[in-house]
């Protein structure tokens, strides 16, 4: 039941906590980029089909726009993921980051950010797929 490793605190248990750079806001960052990418793609497609091409008309440049959004979103998500990775690999402790230290809190935030960035990356790619396989507003 009790984790036998609990008492082996990592070397940096007494390190000054890297608090200044931490905020809970880092967690929703990558999914927010996903959401903005999704919203921009949807609005672009909807307005294009409603105002430019009409039902059944060609998608044309709307697909290019979605491609650009996707590239930008993936780049930002990758940056967020890297920032998370740096936090995750701070010091020498590995997951599950459940020590009662500021350093482990720092690493936990980093690791969760990495995971969220990975999910957001995949989800952004998935959302870009319709623009690859759809040619018209039908």
């Amino acid at each position, binding site marked *: 039941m009790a984790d036998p490793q609990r008492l082996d605190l990592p070397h940096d248990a007494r390190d000054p906590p890297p608090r200044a750079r931490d905020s809970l806001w880092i967690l929703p960052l990558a999914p927010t980029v996903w959401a903005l990418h999704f919203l921009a793609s949807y609005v672009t497609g909807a307005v294009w089909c409603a105002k430019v091409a009409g*039902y*059944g008309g060609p998608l044309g440049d709307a697909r290019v726009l979605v491609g650009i959004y996707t590239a930008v979103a993936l780049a930002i998500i990758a940056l967020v993921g890297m920032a998370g990775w740096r936090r995750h690999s701070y010091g020498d402790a590995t997951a599950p980051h459940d020590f009662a230290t500021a350093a482990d809190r720092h690493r936990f935030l980093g690791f969760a950010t990495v995971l969220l960035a990975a999910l957001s990356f*995949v989800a952004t790619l*998935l959302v870009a*797929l*319709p623009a*690859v*396989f*759809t*040619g*018209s507003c*039908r």
Partner: protein
Amino acid sequence: MPALPIPFLTHGRRLTAAAGVLALAACDGPQSTLTPAGVGAERIADLWWWMFGGAVVIWVVVIGLAVYATRFGTGRHDVRRARLLIIGAGAVFPTVVLTALLIWGLRLMPVLRPPTGDAAVRVEVEGLRWWWRVTYVTPDGRRIPLANEIRLPVGQMAAFTLTSPDVIHSFWIPSLGGKMDMIPGRVTELALEPTRTGVFRGACAEYCGTSHALMQFGVEVLEPAAFDDWLATQAAPAEAPASPEAARGRELFLAFGCGACHAVRGTPADGTIGPDLTHVGGRLTLGAGILPNDPAAFARWIGDTHEVKPDAEMPPFGMLPAADLRALALYLDGLT
């Protein structure tokens, strides 16, 4: 070919027929997506069977793992292996499968929504509470009004233009393909291409008020020549009554003002509020897919309209003498 549709709210003599069809359709029915008779329905049924098989396998594996983990795996596995399970089975495997599935779905979309510019048959369908106004538009622009049934030539694409003047309905022939909503203020499109002949059923799929359950229609897929014959019949004016009683029925029909709402082409009745009745006796069903097409059902519909279809717009004529009802029913039944 099953003798369909089997209208309900019927008793007695139809029951034997119903039992026969039930036996025939033991695993499916005339409204089933699993016995497809159209390009769209076939492709979607294929998708379903693959997904169904995959889902069964995944379910068995997941539940098997859970049972193993709780019952038999005790103490044999460390946290490292458990984490691998999360990454492999929880993250990587679903991502791969879901991506493949999404691409399958996306590639199917253009098949289900083809350009309809060169469709062989054009039909405008208006959903109303609770029936269907159907208008065939021929290539030369003639408009042939009918109601509550669709007949199509096999092997040819039919383009449907869907509208509604009152509430949202949804036009659906499961055997032929997916459904499409009919939304007030909007015009929607649907393309269907039957692949085999037969009699099927369509239904309203969007909840549209009191008698939503009673808003259906008959569908028949014909050989192209038979279809052309049928359409020519529909375009023609009504036949004259075949018997004196039917002729009296026509007099009553006009005298009671039925023509204010209903049209019988070739007579003074030219109402457009209700269904066109010019060839009502030749339809697959009565009352939008809910009664068999025979004189008794006509009498029942006219006399007990609101028992048969609650809140229907048509006022019931239950106060008519039985003889009048019979004459009216006979007349309408003869409009083939």
